[in-house]
């Protein structure tokens, strides 16, 4: 019954939400609206679940001295500090310790981590972007046009050229046609996949979300 009841709930709610999409009757739509609000509440509650799970995972890692357990101590300590300051003195008040730590510690640290990508991308491009085949050459030429066309330097370099072959215009053409066509194909494939997965979940074929299966 531990599996059958969740599967039945999933089936009934899933089918009902599908019915709501096709049946514009106010009884159906008002019930569906109510359920959407339940969804918001459940998602809010799941954040607490996430915090609990984070503590559990890192606590086990520390207790068993698994690789990188020192980082787990840091994670839990920082979380405890943020809780300690955020609880009594609030999180949103201007000048509060929580807000100060967020803006002056988390923001620059995360921005720095993301900025490191520029260094690694440059190094990777130097080592891996080779004209080994016709496809790679095509990709490289498109990349160079887009890289230059996306910055003012590209505009400056080609401003005396005919308008159609100025780098910013060529970049827009690449983005709006070949790139867009390829992404549209990917999106359609992904959408079909999502629909198939949705049906599998509603019909109880896909059960991994219930957990407990190896």
């Amino acid at each position: 019954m531990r599996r059958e009841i969740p599967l039945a709930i999933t089936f009934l709610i899933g089918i009902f939400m599908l019915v709501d999409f096709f049946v514009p009757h106010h009884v159906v739509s008002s019930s569906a609206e109510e359920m959407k609000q339940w969804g918001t509440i459940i998602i809010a509650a799941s954040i607490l679940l996430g915090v609990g799970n984070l503590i559990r995972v890192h606590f086990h890692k520390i207790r068993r001295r698994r690789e990188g357990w020192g980082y787990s101590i840091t994670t839990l300590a920082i979380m405890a500090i943020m809780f300690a300051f955020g609880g009594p003195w609030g999180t949103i008040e201007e000048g509060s310790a929580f807000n100060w730590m967020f803006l002056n510690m988390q923001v620059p640290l995360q921005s720095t981590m993301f900025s490191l990508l520029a260094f690694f991308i440059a190094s990777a491009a130097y080592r891996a972007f080779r004209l080994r085949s016709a496809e790679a050459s095509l990709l490289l030429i498109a990349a160079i046009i887009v890289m230059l066309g996306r910055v003012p330097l590209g505009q400056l370099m080609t401003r005396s050229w005919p308008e159609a072959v100025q780098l910013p215009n060529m970049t827009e053409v690449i983005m709006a046609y070949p790139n867009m066509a390829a992404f549209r194909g990917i999106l359609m494939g992904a959408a079909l996949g999502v629909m198939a997965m949705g049906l599998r979940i509603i019909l109880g074929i896909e059960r991994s979300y219930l957990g407990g299966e190896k």
Partner: protein
Amino acid sequence: MSWAEKVLKVDRRWIFLAIGIAVTIPFFLPLGLPVITTPPVQSLYDAVDELEPNAAPLLLSIDYAPATLPELEPMSMAILRHCFEKDVDVVVMTLHPAGYGLAERAVLNAAEEYDVTYGEDFAFLGFQPGVSAVILGMGINIRNVFPEDAYGTPLDELPLMQGVRNYDDIPLVISLAGWSAAEAWVYFAYQPYRQTVGAGVTAVMATDFYPYLNAGQLVGLLGGMRGAAEYEGLVQHPDQGTRGMDSQSVIHLLIIVLIAIGNTAYFMARRAKAPSGGGVS
């Protein structure tokens, strides 16, 4: 070891150093390169520019986290300045748990530059978890999802929110996101409610959004720091985005030069290794 092989095996820390210098110098010695406006940015600007002053508000969803802040915060500042300059009312919210402080900072910083009043000209709703549920819920009634603003004031007590019930009363939503939130606005606000949606995303994400732009599901698109710089140019308020374009120009050029050097060395090394008279294999 030949010259080409030495070049191919160069310590990557030299590349890091070159990138570091190339990023930093333009901040101290600005090149002042001009930024031209591309159609997706112009479309978004026009959509904001056409909004009625002191009428139905624009909904700005600042859905970015600190990691993507350098690219996306210039966009939020430029859009907020545009609205405040034109007396367009703005409602700000976030779908990202780490976006709360950043959204608040952006709207308060922009508001400081203009003669605008909280509750009358702009409001901050804060954060609600559950991306799709929030967007869908707001289509029914914003008060179901955000009964109060971020500071605990019921929405009915904010003059700005009088008569604003759902997307029927919001002419334009703009999502600035470094993750899939902007797509969620297309899926759950445009598709079921036909809400006009615009987006600002990181440069690497911009390519993913052209299908939505082409299909008319997005009214306009700002892509990366370049998009922010273009918007700053349109509102005639150059700031972080415009400043960053010089660095980005130099970096892109440097990467192209590095690729050229890498390929030259690669082919020279291959030629040197090939049997004599055999050419490149």
